[in-house]
């Protein structure tokens, strides 16, 4: 099948999935209280008027993430899940109430799918992983453990609270931020010293800090799965060429969050100037790069705002405008839909954004 056919098939699959998910969330027998109430307040009927992803983008307004902060969790429980205890995952919350997404199996489904994109060479099966980064109320902690388990591995954890780091940096307590990061790295090095670990999940900054204090190749690390902060071309190149010693350690950047799941990346290297393009786990989630003023996708290889739509039976979130901007990239044979590249906080070129180590 050529790429054009793959693109067409993927688009058809997405359209069909949109219809199925709309039917699920807007039918009284399966839908959630929030969407059923929301639907009642509209002068149009999603069940009748959304037949494709394009319809969804044209008909639905942006999802307001305040709803996830201000409303009780149970308004999001689809009828079909009623009675099943749910996980509560948080995002944000550096100050004030965090946003919360509830879930049951999505993180397992997302990460099982993602596991298929990892190579055994860099993420060996039946061994040990270590996660150094934000655990706590985040989906990531359970997701990484599931991913490791999926590959027959068990996982060590070293926690780092990004909310505290952001507060330290925002108040210019750089020494404290560094001391806290050192504290996390010390714990990770202790694990590496006493246990055999072949794969890491961490943030780019923590990866750098680890590599400055230990030769990761000699320590037996074969793969690094990395996400959480902006990685521009130069930074990605630095991480691949120097921190991961030119490919001796497999470097897998990811873009994901509690609301989406996990996007995979197109391979990077000198051929594409280390420009990292991510592709959403379509059809369970879809990313667009748009001009928010016009709701139109920007041209390929130009900057626009990232818009996320999540389409699972557990959670429906149409057209959430992320706080990120990115370059729109063309479909790729292994992910024949649009990608988002060189993701960075919206407005990053105009102002300093506190990202810290996460």
């Amino acid at each position, binding site marked *: 099948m050529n790429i054009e056919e793959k693109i067409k098939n993927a688009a058809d699959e997405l359209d069909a999935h949109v219809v199925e998910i709309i039917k699920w969330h807007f039918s009284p027998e399966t839908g959630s209280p929030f969407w059923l109430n929301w639907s009642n307040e509209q002068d149009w009927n999603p069940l009748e008027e959304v037949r494709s992803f394009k319809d969804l983008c044209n008909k639905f307004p942006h999802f307001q993430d305040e709803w996830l902060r201000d409303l009780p969790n149970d308004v999001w429980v689809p009828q079909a899940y009623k009675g099943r205890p749910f996980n509560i995952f948080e995002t944000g919350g550096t100050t004030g109430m965090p946003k919360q997404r509830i879930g049951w199996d999505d993180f397992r489904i997302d990460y099982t799918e993602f596991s298929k994109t990892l190579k055994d060479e860099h993420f060996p099966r039946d061994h040990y992983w270590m996660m150094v980064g934000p655990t706590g109320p985040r989906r990531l902690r359970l997701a990484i453990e599931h991913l490791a388990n999926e590959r027959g591995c068990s996982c060590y954890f070293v926690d780092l609270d990004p909310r505290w780091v952001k507060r330290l940096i925002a108040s210019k307590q*750089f020494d404290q931020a560094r001391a806290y990061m050192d504290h996390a790295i010390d714990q990770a090095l202790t694990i590496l010293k006493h246990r055999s670990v072949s794969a890491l999940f961490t943030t780019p900054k923590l990866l*750098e800090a680890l590599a*400055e204090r230990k030769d990761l190749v000699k320590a037996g690390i074969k793969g690094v799965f990395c996400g959480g902060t902006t990685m*521009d*071309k*130069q*930074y990605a*190149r*630095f991480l691949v060429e*120097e*921190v991961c010693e030119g490919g001796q350690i497999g470097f897998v950047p990811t873009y994901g969050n509690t609301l989406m799941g996990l996007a995979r990346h197109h391979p990077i290297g000198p051929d594409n*100037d*280390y420009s990292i393009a991510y592709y959403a786990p379509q059809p369970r989630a879809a990313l667009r790069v748009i001009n928010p003023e016009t709701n139109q996708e920007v041209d390929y290889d130009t900057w626009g705002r990232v818009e996320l739509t999540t389409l699972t039976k557990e959670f429906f979130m149409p057209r959430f405008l992320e706080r990120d901007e990115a370059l729109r990239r063309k479909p790729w044979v292994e992910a024949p839909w649009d990608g988002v590249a060189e993701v960075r906080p919206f407005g990053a070129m105009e102002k300093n954004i506190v990202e810290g180590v996460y």
Partner: protein
Amino acid sequence: MSTPHIPCLRLGKEYRSFNESEVKDYRDGSVKATMSQVNAGIIRRDLQKIGQAREALEKFTTRELIDISAKAGELFLNGNLALGEGGKMQSAQEYLETLSSTSGLPHVMVKRNMDKIHYALTHVELILNGLTRGIDPTILDRGYGEQAGSPVCFYPTTDALGLVMPSNSPAVNSLWLPSIALKIPIVMKPGRDEPWTPFRLIQAFIAAGCPGEAFGFYPTDHEGAGDILRLCNRALIFGDKSTTDLYAGDPGVQVHGPGFSKILIGEDEIENWPDFIEVMASSISDNGGRSCVNASAVIVPKYAREIAEALGKRLGSLNPLPVDDPNAVLSGFANPKMGEWIDGAIDADLLEKGAHDTTAPHREGSRLVQAEGGTYLRPTIVYCESMNHPLSNREFLCPYASVVEVPQSEMLSAIGPTLVVSAITKDKQFTQQLLSASNIERLNLGPISTMKISWDQPHEGNMFEFLYKRRSIGMAA
């Protein structure tokens, strides 16, 4: 001709980053060069290998490095030197013109800065003699020896000298030059708008035979600058008071901030004040008023109002001239917003009672002007009734000074920390008080410009004592 690209130098090796900044003409904003910007992690990784850089310098004797410095001085002043990638070369005239176009310094001032740097490089032996108080260079090579009949032994305090450079005045680069002869490599973040001088100096050193490994040139962000200061055991930082305050008290960081340099006239000489107007004017306005050794206050026991009026008349009529005019004394602003900010800050503080601008009546138009295609500030002299006025002890990046009346007996406590004092007095008691004052870094006695410094006497920290420490040593016979 294509725009040159100035790469990062990692232990002397060129490295082109995907991230670039632009160095622009101060007048029309046209791009004169792009410059690789590197992330802090690159600097941290290179610092783990900095021992190689020091080893490369240790293969030379101090004498050889003094000779290399002298040769580099000639090449810097006159030679064609590599500029960026692709074998691009830059002549001395091109350097002068380009630096002028991005810094706003007129040609005549760039040339003076070049001459200063040339002098420093060709007189490293004299400078080292001053810094070490006459230690034989071979003692530095061996690490121990005998001076004036006593055994001496020195060890380096660091493997690299970190430098976070400013953009305002090329001659500040002369401060780090002795480091090479002292066999300490440099790790530098250049000023955002002034990569030209340090890059040319590095190329001059390399062309003169210095190992490239000795030079780290890292255009970088705040994190990178912070890491240079944190991870090099010894570093220099240049910046305004808010920047330098962060590192005050850190023995590993030598801060070079505002100088708050001043001219003091004693009671015995004050009746002759008209004779000193020229030395005051040149102290205030030479080098475009951009140096920390420019006088920013004139402190007198009486006639402050008259002196302020005379200086206002002398300097108030100065206007921007074409960059290649040999009589040009004002510099344009590479960042026009800086000029606007200074203009606004002076005006805001003039609203406070007890001060007035004595240059204003002699200017045609405003202090802030658009001229010669750029943004300029014309000189400002402010008469202040007391040292309590916010404009009495300020320093701006332009010809600016206050004139304040303070009784001679209170002057030394009133002036605060001062980089250079030119004290015009012959009074022995006052002279003795000046010599004993702990708040003056350099003291000129007599009608000498504050701009006058001596290369064989450090006026702002002793580089040798910063980079080396003496220890006691015993050796079996």
